[in-house]
């Protein structure tokens, strides 16, 4: 049996879920997962055998996603990824309100989304998440706390805005 396939395939559903939450597009999400798996296979021999495979894969996936955002942003003709531009159009938008957590997530910057998803949805420990982001655990904790504060505010606004509209 192929060792790489046996170890990687059980993790594909999680890689797809994180990719979808980040891209919010099914095709782009699977493109991202495919790139991640190709990269993982090409570096299979280089991975640390005692290391955490899941954290390693999420790190590859997240880095690929971040560099694709950067590439898009460098091209002047493409629209900025509003969610990744603090103070950008999305944040100033009057309708900045979210009726659920997934919608709210779209308004947060990439690193906030990543900690919320890896910790809250993918069940990575704080230490694993720190490894994925290549940051100290303390920084991850404060980022998580800021991300949750923003998420609460977005949903709060969304709820009151929604109520006002139905009245």
């Amino acid at each position, binding site marked *: 049996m*192929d060792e*790489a*396939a046996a170890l*990687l*395939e059980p993790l*594909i*559903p*999680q890689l*797809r*879920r994180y990719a*979808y*939450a980040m891209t919010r597009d099914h095709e782009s999400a*699977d493109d991202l*997962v*495919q790139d991640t*798996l*190709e*990269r993982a*296979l*090409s*570096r299979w*021999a*280089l991975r640390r055998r005692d290391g955490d495979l899941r954290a390693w894969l999420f790190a590859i996936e997240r880095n690929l996603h971040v*560099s694709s955002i950067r*590439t898009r942003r*460098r*091209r002047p003709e493409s629209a900025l990824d509003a969610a990744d531009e603090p103070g950008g159009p999305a944040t100033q938008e009057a309708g900045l309100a979210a009726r*659920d*957590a*997934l919608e*709210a*997530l779209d308004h947060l910057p990439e690193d906030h989304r990543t900690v*919320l*998803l890896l*910790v*809250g*949805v993918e069940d990575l*420990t*704080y230490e694993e998440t720190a490894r994925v982001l290549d940051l100290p655990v303390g920084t991850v*904790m*404060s980022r*998580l*706390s800021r991300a*949750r504060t923003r*998420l*609460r505010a977005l*949903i709060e606004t969304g709820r009151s805005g929604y109520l006002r509209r139905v009245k």
Partner: protein
Amino acid sequence: MTMPGAPVGDDDLAALVDGRLTPERRAAVEAWLAEHPDAAARVEADRSQRDDLRARLAFKVEEPIPSRLRIANIRVARRARSLSQLRAVAAAVALVALGGAGGWVAKDVAGTGQGASSSPVAFVSDAVGAYRTFVVEIAHPVEVRAGDEAHLITWLSKRIGKPLKAPDLTGFGFRLMGGRVLPAGAGAAAMLMYDDDAGTRLTVYVRADKGAETAFQFMREGEVGTFTWLDRGFGFAVSAKADRDRLLPIAEAVYKDLGA
């Protein structure tokens, strides 16, 4: 971990939301929350948002894995790409020989020179190092100018009994400036340099490398982007101060040209 009796902090509240407290600490934090309704409400909101997020994304983990993401299929696709490169070896041999004919040696240029069985990382750092060293060179960016190419290529093609060409990148606005040879461990590496009207320089670096075959990999060091791949005993690197999207079609053209 925090002592059970320590004052409650933000980290405790986060760990409570994420279910990562020991039972003793959890009891202490919950007792504290009973007296701090604002904090308790925030914890409750965080919990319900996390659950909401999970619920909204749950369908994605339930979906069957698309066949293009099966590891076996990803491997097949990678191999198919390598096979189309059958003749790249001949071209690579010739390129290395082209360097050898020039006979230019500068041991310090190619870095540590781990050579033939170096890791992809060392290969890339040698290729990027070579790019950085010569791309800034005004007087002697190349050892053999493109004008002499026909003569050299003819001679080399005769020597190895196979037609050879330098990749044609004019479609991307890059003209061949020439090439040079660089030391690479026990062997040699060949570098071809191109430039465009804006003065952007691009290098194609080839050397013998026994590493396992790989698909295209993109690396960035500062402003320099590099696509590399290893195939049948040779490593290839295409470097330029260009972003991934501009470099990818060029790397693909080099791939095709050296394989055609």
